[in-house]
């Protein structure tokens, strides 16, 4: 017991060390950091403008008002951005495999996942994070939710589990790199696509998408259904804990990663 605790603690310490190296090296190029941060902000700010102008024309969409959609967009953006800040190393994984860098990771006496996580700490995403936080505050202030403990817990669970779902997707993407490096762009549909289209409550996309986004990749468990509970359209206490079920998605993702690592045949030079 004590030994496992020690191992976990040392892993955390190692990870924090990686993070500090990453931040220090990024700060060597301050202008570049600054501009990339602004760029990230502008991209998602444009998405916001798209929503804004649609709602100048329409007062609601499928029963969701502007404020409610903003809250929904803010939550999915926070979830995705948190995952991306921490797990960007997996997003950049093709180049690690292609260059043979993964050989070096494997010979080190540390967990591979921690090393890949530590390889990149994408602080430039705080531009987008800031926007998400502002929209989140606005959405919360304007959407007339009466807050109580279960609802606060729900939001908390949504954010944590949502970040886990996206982390799982990044992990699957990286695991697929062990088998092929070609044509993996289609995975963008599930990561960037979910960020892009998760801006509206998933319910508006119809029955089939809703089923897919519940049982195949559990987006709706961290977006649509808990949102309905927040807005008071569902009352069962089950909805508070629903987001946590989405964390189960990490299990197959982790298994695929493990299988990929054992399947890894070196490349590069």
């Amino acid at each position, binding site marked *: 017991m004590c030994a496992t605790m020690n191992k976990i603690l040392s892993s955390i310490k190692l990870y924090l060390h990686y993070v500090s190296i990453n931040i220090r090296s990024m700060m060597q190029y301050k202008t570049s950091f600054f501009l990339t941060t602004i760029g990230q902000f502008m991209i998602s700010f444009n998405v916001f403008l798209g929503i804004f102008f649609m709602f100048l024309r329409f007062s609601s969409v499928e029963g969701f008002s502007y404020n409610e959609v903003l809250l929904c967009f803010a939550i999915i953006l926070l979830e995705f951005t948190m995952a991306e800040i921490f797990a960007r190393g997996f997003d950049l994984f093709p180049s690690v495999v292609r260059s043979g860098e993964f050989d070096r990771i494997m010979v080190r006496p540390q967990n591979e996942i921690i090393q890949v996580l530590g390889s990149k700490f994408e602080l430039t995403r705080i531009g987008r994070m800031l926007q998400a936080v502002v929209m989140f505050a606005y959405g919360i202030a304007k959407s007339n939710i009466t807050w109580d403990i279960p609802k606060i817990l729900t939001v908390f669970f949504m954010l944590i589990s949502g970040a886990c779902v996206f982390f799982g997707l990044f992990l699957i993407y990286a695991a697929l790199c062990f088998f092929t490096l070609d044509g993996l*762009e289609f995975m963008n*549909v599930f990561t960037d696509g979910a960020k892009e289209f998760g801006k509206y409550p998933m319910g508006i996309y119809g029955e089939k998408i809703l089923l897919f986004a519940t049982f195949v990749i559990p987006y709706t468990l961290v977006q649509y259904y808990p949102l309905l509970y927040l807005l008071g359209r569902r009352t069962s206490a089950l909805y508070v804990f629903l987001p946590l079920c989405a964390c189960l998605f990490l299990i197959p993702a982790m298994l695929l990663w493990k299988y990929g690592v054992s399947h890894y045949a070196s490349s590069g030079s």
Partner: protein
Amino acid sequence: MKKYLSFFRLRFAMGLQYRVAALAGIVTQFFWGIMEIMIFHAFYRTDASAFPMTLSATTSYIWLQQSFLAFFTAWMMENEIFDSIVNGNIAYELCRPINIYNMWFARSIANRLSKAVLRCFPILIVAAFIPAPYGIAAPVSIGHFLLFIITLFLGLAMMVSFCMLIYVLTFFTISPQGLRIVFVSCVEFFSGALIPLPFFPEKIRQVMELLPFASMQNVALRIYSADMNRIEIERAIMLQIFWLVVVTLSGKLLCKAAERHITLQGG
């Protein structure tokens, strides 16, 4: 002219090699199209009277946008060009007896064209079989279709000449990052990539339609489903030609100025 044509052929043939990437692109674009259409459809169901275009014109717009994404995405600039300016490889190109502006123009067009050729047909064919109003409708008339093709290529030229302006300005700023961010965001917002221009409020739209960004995808994609009347089409094509000339000429002049005072980076 022959030189630039062979540059064009070379790049075009190179672009056609990336077939797996194209397949992945097709899947992504197809999915993107479906999801976009579902969003607009949801708004349509909620309040059809506030819809500024017909539903079928909107879906055709989206399918064409996804099919010709390679023509009109701003972020798809040539990193090789930026790199050559930053690391000094541009020296080799300056030694050659060619006009750098024309060469880059030819290769940018070839790149975008080869990407679009690989991607557009599968998307268009599948979209044509999706039942109305969700699929792509047939063109309204042969005249509209011809005008669509003409304005599509004018839009491509417009897009490329705008990118050229960014490449040339990089001679002065060295780092392309800042310019790129501003440029990409402006194109996304003003060109109708985000939401088609008719969805903006009337007054804002009138101003937006005069900007050079509106001469990119906006014109062709709306002519296809006759979302513009005759007078609007005439005005839009005139504006396209006007902006194309202005932007290309200023790009060329800037390029001349830059070539005179060029500092080679790297070593």
